[in-house]
């Protein structure tokens, strides 16, 4: 078997909470408490769990938005948790993140062009503005947006369109690993379906590996190859998608699957 693109071992991310101070012990929140998983080239792994289980922290730690307390994460043979911010910066081209809230994740003061050009210039992928505009136009069309929208500002777009722009910002760098943190949960049902289809399509066409973080079991089943179930900072079960959904082994996984309100009961 080939070496995985990303191999996470015993990852721990703790937060100290409370202001501390005299006669007050700082307490520690163990958001992520020793989890291990791997993602191969072209594979989609879903991290599923309820709010507060630490699934988002995993994604944020892997992109150095949070600092890992312990553990290793070998990306393409390098431990990315050990790198300084400056050392990690060039790697950001390869490890990209899609955020949950399409309204908060776009800077309201930047035009779409400015926003999408920024990563291109940072990673020196284009020489000048006209080249950047070409890349931006192509990427916007890839995510189903009009190339002309690059001259507009975020507030002129709906939630679904903004999320497409967020995806364009990620895909424009042709990354090798995309971490998608609840990418559709802030969207309306009909828009969720569009964006899920888009993410699936883009993943297939580009062959990018993906860590899909979600609480939505339907979305997880739709998009992933393998699934890891997380509960209180730890993984309770990891397996092939079909196995997790059809023959769940852990009681928590069963409870989770059991809780989903079903349409099909009535239809059938």
């Amino acid at each position, binding site marked *: 078997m080939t070496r995985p693109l990303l191999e996470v071992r015993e990852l721990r991310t703790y937060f100290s909470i409370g202001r501390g101070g005299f006669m007050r012990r700082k307490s520690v929140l163990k958001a992520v408490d020793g989890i291990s998983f791997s993602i191969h080239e072209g594979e989609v792994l879903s991290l599923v769990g*309820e*709010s507060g289980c630490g699934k988002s922290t995993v994604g944020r730690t892997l992109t150095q938005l949070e600092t890992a307390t312990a553990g290793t994460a070998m990306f393409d043979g390098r431990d990315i948790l050990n790198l300084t911010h400056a050392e990690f910066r060039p790697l950001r081209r390869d490890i990209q993140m899609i955020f949950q809230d399409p309204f908060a994740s776009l800077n309201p003061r930047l035009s779409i062009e400015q926003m999408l050009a920024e990563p291109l210039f940072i990673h020196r992928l284009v020489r000048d503005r006209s080249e950047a505009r070409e890349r931006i136009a192509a990427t916007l069309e890839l995510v189903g947006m009009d190339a002309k929208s690059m001259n507009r500002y975020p507030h002129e777009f*709906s939630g*679904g*369109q903004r999320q497409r722009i967020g995806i364009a910002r990620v895909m424009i760098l042709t990354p090798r690993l995309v971490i998608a943190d609840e990418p559709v949960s802030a969207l*309306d*049902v*009909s*828009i*969720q*379906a*569009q964006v*899920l*289809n888009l993410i*699936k399509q883009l993943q297939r066409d580009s062959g990018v590996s993906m860590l899909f973080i979600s*609480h*939505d*079991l*339907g*979305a997880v*089943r*739709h998009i992933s190859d393998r699934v890891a179930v997380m509960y209180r900072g730890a993984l309770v079960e990891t397996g092939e998608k*079909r196995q997790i*959904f059809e023959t769940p082994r852990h009681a928590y996984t069963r*409870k*989770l*699957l*059991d*809780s*989903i*309100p*079903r*349409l*099909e*009961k*009535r*239809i059938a």
Partner: protein
Amino acid sequence: MALLDIRNLDLRIARGSELLPVVQGVSFAVEENETLGIVGESGCGKSLTALAIMGLLEGSAVRIAGGSVHFQGRDLLTLSPEERRRVMGDQMAMIFQEPMTSLNPVYRVGDQIREAILQHRSMSRRQAHDRALDLLELVRIPDPVRRIDSFPHQMSGGQRQRVMIAMALACDPKLLIADEPTTALDVTVQKEVLELMRGLQTRTGMSIVLISHDLGVISETCDKVAVMYRGRIVEQASTSTLFSNMSHPYTLGLLGSIPATDHDVEWLDAIPGRVPTLDEAVPGCAFHPRCFAAKGSCRTVDPGAAAVSPAHFVRCHFPQGSSS
């Protein structure tokens, strides 16, 4: 006679000097001990309809432009504010989407429940306290004697929503309006809360109007369903009829948009496009720009509600399933 009977409710929102329609010609009825679900996406007018029934639109930018809301035989829209308040929280109660912010952070939950009781019932503070304890027990809050003195921030989201339900049940309402009661909760907690609501309904015989964007929640809990799109009810039927014989293209689209958890599909049947904003006027059927079945007349004529079968109404020129 139905407990709640709404006819041709029209709501408009003030935008500058204009009044834009946000809810148009909404009619439905809820019988005793029945649960009606209203399903739709954000901005379809489902929450505004609920607030209008409850009488909480006062002070907002939304005006009631027409229609009637008959509750226990009286048209609530003709009552004075004073008479209206006597119904609110007594015969009719409401719970909201955000359990984290819907309770006042500076008062203990017991005080907040007691306030709801004492507003409509004359009893001593002691009696009200005991009643509050009973209510907390009823909504299955563990250790109610201790929890009655908790502040909201000391409870989890699920517990707060239980407190909200306890508060709503304070005066044994005949009608409970639940506006996205489980949307902010995790699935496992959602299941518990929905089960609690069902159990309480069996016990008290109250009616429920459940508002949700989640077809799954609706299908598991409701007797009847109304599907709303852009301020109108586009399809209305009993839950079993609706799910076995979906007729409106929007309802079908909603169902197709939900990824299943018990089988694999390659691609979701997503509805293309987006909901037009309030100030974008759409001639003809409001759904036609996104509709796979749209033909000539859809672009010019707004369809009225027509029965495809008894008690199954669809607002569409070309209802699916039954004819084609």
